[in-house]
């Protein structure tokens, strides 16, 4: 089994598996945060429900953290091998019908940017200013207020949107590739998988984008 994990094919399985963990997380994260469009109370109560159940929270956080670390380490090790495999550069790159799709060429750069975004994102929100609010005699964090404050800044909204575009490309390629890496790809599935992956990436992009835009354009302080 160790040989499997060390092989180029095995490491692709790991990339796919750890990527899938985040594919699932990103979807639920986006969907749940849509509550911000509806009410501050629902938004805060949902956040409270998530964070107050430590028995679920810590293992979930551990899985996410573990998955992203393994994803990154695997990516680094594959990238090192891949660079070694192509020791000299071409004068010209493929063009026309033979050019590969662009997002697939820059997974590493997208990934690094997304990592920077995640760290910054956690600092801003999870470890950001702690406001309190009370609903039905329960004191909880008023994350809604913080989000509203942060998204007033045009600079922040711009940076957020740019990162979402990168995330969309990264996910669109990842969600297709995983079928091939896992060996599920069949001839008849090829077109469908492309559509599926892009639909997924687009839903994530539009869902997440609607939140800062809503705050910035409609819900001005």
């Amino acid at each position, binding site marked *: 089994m160790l040989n499997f994990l060390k092989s*180029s094919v095995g490491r692709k399985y790991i990339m796919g598996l750890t990527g899938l963990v985040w594919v699932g997380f990103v979807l639920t994260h986006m969907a749940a945060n849509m509550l911000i469009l509806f009410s501050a109370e629902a938004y805060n109560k949902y956040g409270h429900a998530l964070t107050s159940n430590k028995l679920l929270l810590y293992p979930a956080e551990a899985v996410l953290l573990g998955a992203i670390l393994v994803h990154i380490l695997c990516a680094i090790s594959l990238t090192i*091998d*891949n660079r070694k495999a192509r020791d000299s550069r*071409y*004068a*010209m790159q493929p063009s026309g019908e*033979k050019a590969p799709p662009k997002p697939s060429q820059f997974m590493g750069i997208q990934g690094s940017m997304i990592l920077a975004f995640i760290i910054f994102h956690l600092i801003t929100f999870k470890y950001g200013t702690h406001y309190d609010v009370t609903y039905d005699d329960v004191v909880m964090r008023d994350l809604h207020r913080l989000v509203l404050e942060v998204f007033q800044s045009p600079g922040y909204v711009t940076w957020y949107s740019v990162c979402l575009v990168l995330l969309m490309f990264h996910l669109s390629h990842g969600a297709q590739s995983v079928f*091939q890496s*896992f060996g599920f790809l069949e001839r008849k599935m090829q077109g469908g998988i492309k559509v599926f992956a892009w639909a997924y990436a687009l839903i994530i992009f539009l869902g997440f984008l609607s939140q800062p835009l809503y705050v910035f354009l409609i819900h001005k302080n």
Partner: protein
Amino acid sequence: MESKQNINLKLKVWRQKNAQAKGEFVTYDAKDVSPDASFLEMLDAVNENLVIKGEEPIVFDHDCREGICGSCGFMINGNAHGPKKGTTICQLHMRQFSDGEELTLEPWRATAFPVMKDLMCDRSAFDRIIKSGGYISVNTGGARDANNILISKVNADEAFLSAMCIGCGACVASCKNASAALFTSAKISHLAYLPQGQVEQNQRALNMVAQMDAEGFGACTTTGACSAACPKEISLINIAKMNREFLRASITKKEEAGGGDLA
């Protein structure tokens, strides 16, 4: 019969004396080229002129010149086998190009495919991958009836599509990781779809993937550049099949039987 006019081209060709030498681009004129000539015939004419002038001709690999042997292949303007899909360079015709165009010709570039001279590189890494498992064992003696074993049409077709790989190396050359996943997977799939290939199925997947890695090819990042450049348009589904075979083999491969149960 309508015929296009002859064209003139500028060729920027990679010249490299031997495997150790540092290469460089040298520019040549290709004059009065017939649009009906193949790309290699055009180079033959350029070479003839070089020989007359007492210069070294440009070295490139070729053999059948009908797109079936896999010998030929280099980059034209960054595209393996040139701009046209599903074509080897020997089957590429000059009518694809227009008068006055400048073409950059480079050899395949990959650590596992060292350049030997000019546009020719050493692709014996592919031979070693085949040697590690790209075969089936059969008894010698009289040939058996070809239809002895029934094979479903779907599998026969799929195996045939994989078997179309001519091993030219355009996949490796086009991949930004110089990955040999498309070649290796085509060879694994071609046999795995057929009953005759199933006897050695597990060992084949394990050995060929191990050999592919050992040769220093990169990993697949699913860009699809390989399949787009492939003169036989080998599909990416072969890579999925290889990964599946490799996973299954890693899990289910049986140890060689000893005597009795393990205590």
